[in-house]
């Protein structure tokens, strides 16, 4: 009986291997276009690309009254007119997604001279890690996983990926806020995000008539929930960025992490210096960790003043033209170590 079964299993494996080839030549591309158009775009544009720029909405989001609508990557490209910087964007994307895009760069032909990846501080927090947008994002990379393509497609059908419901994700987020201890090198009265958030919600801001300023309180609470965390080695995003740094080092691809600006001014005025301390401490962690080998961190954390943020009542990395320009300039300067010969002062 066992001999019969083993022979049939062997036959099945051969059949599946053959079917994998058929899938690769028939439906794979269509599936990829449907689920992960960014990789299709990446492959299509690679022959004409010198530098790839992976980003979320920070790259292309503009303010309504901006007279110049260029994205950060396009403005950066002005400084290097003889190079082609190609942006691959997707809203809400983070390191866990970029790592899959990165490994789909063809290293045998038309290898890019460098890859720039946005390093978004918020993507390390519980708010983003457990965001409801995570399920579609994870779905979009199933076909890119390092398994046979047919198996990936089957995993997609089985919904075999990080496919939690919105409620589950919210529960995880709240649990993290409740249980993760905040660490400061100085005494601080709130031990967790929940405690801090609770305090902020207790009428911290009042209107001239004495009533609570709900709008301001909500925003202050949101700042706490967004930025009050200590990045540690076990953070899933750290693992993703570690992977990308190692991959680029191993494959001799120059990598730039473009650390995005955050609204430190508002964080300070709404919540206080403790929150700003955490933000800067997290920035230092990332800069120290990734500024090595052929990887460089472009630090823009404090590059954009508070009023240049598009969303004044929320925490986003959406900037006005001046904000995008400030980041692009910083980035262009950072690229000079490798591309000084191509650099041209554009502004």
């Amino acid at each position, binding site marked *: 009986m066992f001999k*019969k079964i083993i022979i049939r299993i062997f036959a099945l494996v051969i*059949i599946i291997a053959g079917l994998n080839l058929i899938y690769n030549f028939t439906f794979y591309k269509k599936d990829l276009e449907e689920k992960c158009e960014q990789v299709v775009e990446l492959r299509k544009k690679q022959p004409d690309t010198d530098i790839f720029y992976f980003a979320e909405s920070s790259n292309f989001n503009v303010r309504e009254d901006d007279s110049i609508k260029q994205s950060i990557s396009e403005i950066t490209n002005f400084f290097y007119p003889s190079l082609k910087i190609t942006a691959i964007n997707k809203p809400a994307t983070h390191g866990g997604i970029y790592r899959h895009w990165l490994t789909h760069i063809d290293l045998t032909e038309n290898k890019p001279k460098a890859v720039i990846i946005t390093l978004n501080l918020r993507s390390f927090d519980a708010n983003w890690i457990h965001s409801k947008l995570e399920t579609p994002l994870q779905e979009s990379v199933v076909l890119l996983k390092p398994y046979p393509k*047919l198996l990936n497609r*089957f995993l997609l*059908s089985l*919904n075999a990926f990080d496919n939690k419901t919105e409620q589950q994700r919210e529960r995880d987020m709240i649990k993290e806020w409740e249980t993760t201890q905040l660490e400061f090198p100085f005494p601080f009265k709130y031990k967790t995000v929940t405690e801090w958030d609770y305090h902020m919600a207790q009428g911290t801001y009042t209107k001239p008539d004495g009533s609570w300023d709900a709008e301001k309180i909500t925003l202050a609470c949101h700042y706490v929930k967004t930025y009050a965390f200590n990045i540690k080695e076990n953070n899933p995003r750290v693992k993703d960025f570690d992977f990308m740094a190692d991959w680029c080092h191993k494959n001799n691809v120059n990598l730039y992490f473009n650390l995005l600006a955050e609204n430190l001014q508002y964080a300070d005025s709404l919540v206080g210096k403790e929150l700003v301390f955490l933000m800067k401490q997290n920035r230092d962690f990332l800069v120290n960790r990734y500024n090595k080998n052929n990887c460089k961190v472009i630090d823009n954390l404090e590059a954009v003043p508070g009023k240049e943020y598009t969303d004044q009542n929320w925490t986003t990395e959406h900037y006005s033209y001046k904000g995008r320009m400030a980041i692009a300039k910083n980035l262009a300067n950072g690229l000079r170590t490798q591309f000084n010969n191509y650099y041209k002062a554009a502004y």
Partner: protein
Amino acid sequence: MVFVPKYILILFAIILIDYLAALTIEQLKGRLRLFYLVVSLIANIGMLAFFKYFNFANENLVTVFSWFGKEFHPVNLDIILPIGLSFHTFQSMSYTIEVYRGRQKAERHLGYFANYVLFFPQMVAGPIERYETLGNELREEHKPKYENFSDGFKLILFGLFIKMAVADNIAPFVNQVYSDPMKYNSLQVLGAVFLFSFQIYADFFGYSTIALGSARMLDIKIMDNFNTPYLSKSITEFWTRWHISLSTWFRDYLYIPLGGNRVTLPRWSINILIVFMVSGLWHGASWTFVVWGALHGLMILTERYTSKILKFKIREGWNVVNVLLTIKTFIVASFIWIFFRAEDFPKAKLIIKAMVKNWKIEKTDVPYLYAFVFSIVLIVIDIFLYNSRFDKRIGVTKIPVRWAVYAVLIFCLMALSGTQKFTFIYFQF
């Protein structure tokens, strides 16, 4: 419908009550036997009523009170229907009834009885097995056999294909149109109505086949729940081929006790309507399901009366008339499914309205290609499997053909299955 770990206690309660009731019934004589049967039935039906029909009953009471100008403020319970409750209560009830009727010996071993109720391949969505078959099978000694693995694998592969490639590729089309029917052209709405017939069949047939295959691998034979239902020439025949385990359950424990067909024609008509309306209600706590059941009952009555008046009898075999009758049956069943699929009467009305009135509006984009292709595939499969089953039919073909079929099924399953998450439709019952 959801899996909540503490709900396992409900299962244990059902098992314990029916186990003890059956033992007691067997030992007693006279009217006390009936008393314990009633206790067992009340416990089972009560459990079902509490979880499934409590809020529905409240809603109806509010309406009834409002007819008389009175207000009724019910206490609605925030409860979730335990997964598969309707199936295992019916399975368990059939056992105590059979013991009461003296056709089945009471099981002395609690473990065997618990295994009968909890047998995993069919616990959640049937087939609703009888103790006479499944219970006794579970008592026998089973050894691993190659044939069981082989047949089980074939059935599971085929079941997965039917569910994941066929049903899950049809579902997006149907769901999209049903979510906002007035947006779609009449032809598309009509398409969705017919496609839902295929979707629900593939969804449930796929599950039942996987259950059959899983049991088969353990050397346990469970009953076929489907036998190419859309190749029925009448609705009467349809119900001998669709969800067979439920139809036979209602036949044995409701239709026959009501008098079956050994009563006058008017009484028989009422019996048929009662059975089908209860069957509709079994599916879900909503009047749409009751209407769905009632329409099937009415169709069966119509068929009986017209054949009597016209002295028409369907002949065996396939000819032009029978093909036309089969198409007619499919169309009728499809239209009746509208009440099953629509969440409420206004939605059902909207579907019918869109089907009739939207001929002139432009077609909206819907994912139709795979839905239609796999529906046609399902028809071809049904013709191929007419009065048979996949493992039996494929088992007699030549090896190259058989393996080529496996390869095609595996490819469709792995490369072309739907990618959205659709749980089995019958899990909600």
